């Protein structure tokens, strides 16, 4: 299944992974400084999954995301300033400060939103895939979901309906072994691939820390889905480095588990590959510094952003004013 990426391609994936990693490290510090309101769920440790999958997508494709959605957003190409501004709660944010980290969305690039409801993105992606199918857009939809979401009934409904309707839909599971404070084995009794197979859905498991492996598997599955072969399941084994949310002391996790999680770093995996391909450390550092500079600029701009206007928000509950009184 391994397809060879050339240097340039891998560098580009690496760059996006660095963008996600550094953005979230920055967010972690901003959170520590009290600059991020609300809950913040970081995806550090699983950058290779959204990057590998989104690299296999085309512009018209769509993705529905989760509460841990920064990587999906950035990999799908949302505007970086709007991204930070949203998480900091600014008028210039992608959602004008109304949603925050858990609701980052950018419909222009097919990012249908992070989602505060575990499993909530699954039927959205299914509906989006239906729209692709009916409109013959040639597009594919991706539903990102965590291992915790596997227990929600809506997964079952969506596997079934997607299989019946042969929808162009990729079920992309980010299995990091944790659902908040509970380990997978106490949460879910089945294997996702076996479950998918019961519905006749092709399913593959990959190392979610190897962006090339993710990219290769996604490529094949997305091509199949696009070609009319129906839904596909890609289960990525991955890790959660940080707490469930920032501020979570992770007391429920033993040191060994955390060390294991950190032992496999998708950035190191890829930078080692790049070096093996002959890319110099210097070139990699230059790229990283450029990413860091973009992030700093975006953060600086976001911080200067305005507080959102309440009256404007209150007037924007509906797209079009109707004839009566709401309430």
């Amino acid at each position, binding site marked *: 299944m391994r397809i060879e990426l050339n240097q340039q391609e891998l560098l580009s994936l690496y760059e996006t992974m660095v963008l996600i990693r550094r953005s979230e490290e920055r967010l972690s510090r901003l959170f520590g400084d009290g600059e991020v309101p609300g809950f913040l769920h970081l995806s550090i440790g699983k950058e290779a999954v959204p990057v590998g999958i989104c690299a296999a997508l085309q512009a018209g494709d769509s993705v529905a995301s989760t509460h841990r959605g920064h990587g999906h957003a950035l990999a799908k190409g949302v505007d970086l300033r709007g991204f930070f501004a949203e998480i900091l709660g600014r008028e210039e944010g992608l959602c004008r400060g109304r949603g925050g980290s858990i609701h980052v969305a950018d419909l222009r690039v097919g990012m249908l939103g992070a989602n505060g409801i575990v499993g909530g993105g699954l039927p959205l992606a299914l*509906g989006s895939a239906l729209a692709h199918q009916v*409109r013959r857009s040639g597009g594919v939809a991706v539903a990102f979901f965590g291992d915790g979401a596997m227990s929600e009934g809506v997964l079952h409904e969506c596997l079934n309906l997607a299989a019946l309707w042969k929808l162009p839909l990729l079920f992309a599971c980010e299995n990091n072994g944790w659902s908040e404070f509970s380990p997978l084995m106490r949460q879910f009794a089945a294997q996702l691939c076996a479950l998918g197979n019961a519905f006749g859905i092709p399913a593959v498991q990959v190392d979610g820390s190897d962006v090339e492996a993710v990219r290769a598997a996604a490529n094949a599955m997305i091509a199949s889905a696009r070609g009319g072969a129906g839904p596909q399941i890609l289960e990525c084994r991955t890790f959660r480095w940080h707490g469930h949310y920032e501020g979570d002391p992770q007391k429920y996790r033993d040191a060994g588990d955390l060390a294991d999680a950190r032992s496999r770093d998708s950035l190191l995996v890829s930078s080692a590959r790049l070096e093996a391909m002959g890319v110099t450390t210097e070139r990699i550092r230059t790229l990283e510094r450029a990413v860091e500079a973009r992030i700093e600029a975006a953060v600086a701009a976001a911080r200067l952003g305005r507080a959102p206007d309440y009256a404007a928000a209150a007037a924007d509950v509906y797209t079009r004013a109707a004839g009566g*009184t709401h309430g």
Partner: protein
Amino acid sequence: MAETRYGMAINRALADAMQADSSVILFGEDIAAAGGPFAVTRGLQAKFGPERVRDTPISEATIAGAAVGAALGGLKPVVEIMFMDFITLAMDALVNQAAKAHFMFGGQCSVPMVVRTPHGGGLNAGPQHSQCLEAWLAHVPGLKVVVPSNPTDAYALLRAAIEDPDPVVFVENKALYSTKGELADVPQPVAIGRASIARSGSDATIVVYGASVAAALNAAAALAAEGIAAEVIDLRSIQPWDERAVLASVAKTRRLIVAHEAVTAFGVGAEIAARVSELAFVELAAPVLRVGADFMPVPFARALEREYLPGAADITAAVRRCLDWKANARIKP
């Protein structure tokens, strides 16, 4: 202009909307090949094909959630939840996704979807197949809720709902499906949020929607025989609701009765009564009275359901109570 049943008016609205706009699609349980449990979608699959008119498995949560995704993807899905009682299974998608997407994504997108669902009793269908739960939905910012009472409005409001950029819950009433009314060849549009005056009168205002409109008209006719001129306002839309029209009528009649089939307590009538009691405090010559179902599940047996369902007699009695109201009634706490 032809005599048309309520259910057929809905069918025609669906057909006309699908004809006019290829992005309109339908899906739901048993709506396609079999034409729906109440025959409302009959013939539409044959006309528009299996791609645009689809049977789904029994998966209410996914029906509603997929509608949101499809709407974000450029379609205008009109989905069916077979009985309103089953909307309990679709609340997450409606409330947490459909209702909020426009607002919480900062106005980036709209969610042009319609959920059709029948409420109401009268069929002895029992506690899990008869509920009127529209008050829940009216409490959710981002949703619109309409409840037509006759074929003309059913047609026009469904067309309006489908054209609306925001999610609309279109509540049908099972007992109305076979009722008849005139439907113009080219029906007039009706805007969501506008009430209609079903009967004019100057002595008391009766605000109703859905199946209760007929009950109110019967009550008004009975009262007319006693020389009481009741005005009947058919809300048609409950979220938003036409406060102006209601206040204008109350300014004239100084008496208001709000009636619906749903349970009275914490129902739609509470909001209307609370609002009018506040805004027309001076004008009201008597307290706003509410007519609705007792606080109990919809019972099955004929005798029980008959007594349970609020009807014309209950409305008549409330109007009389309102007119007879004397200021000497004191609180007895």
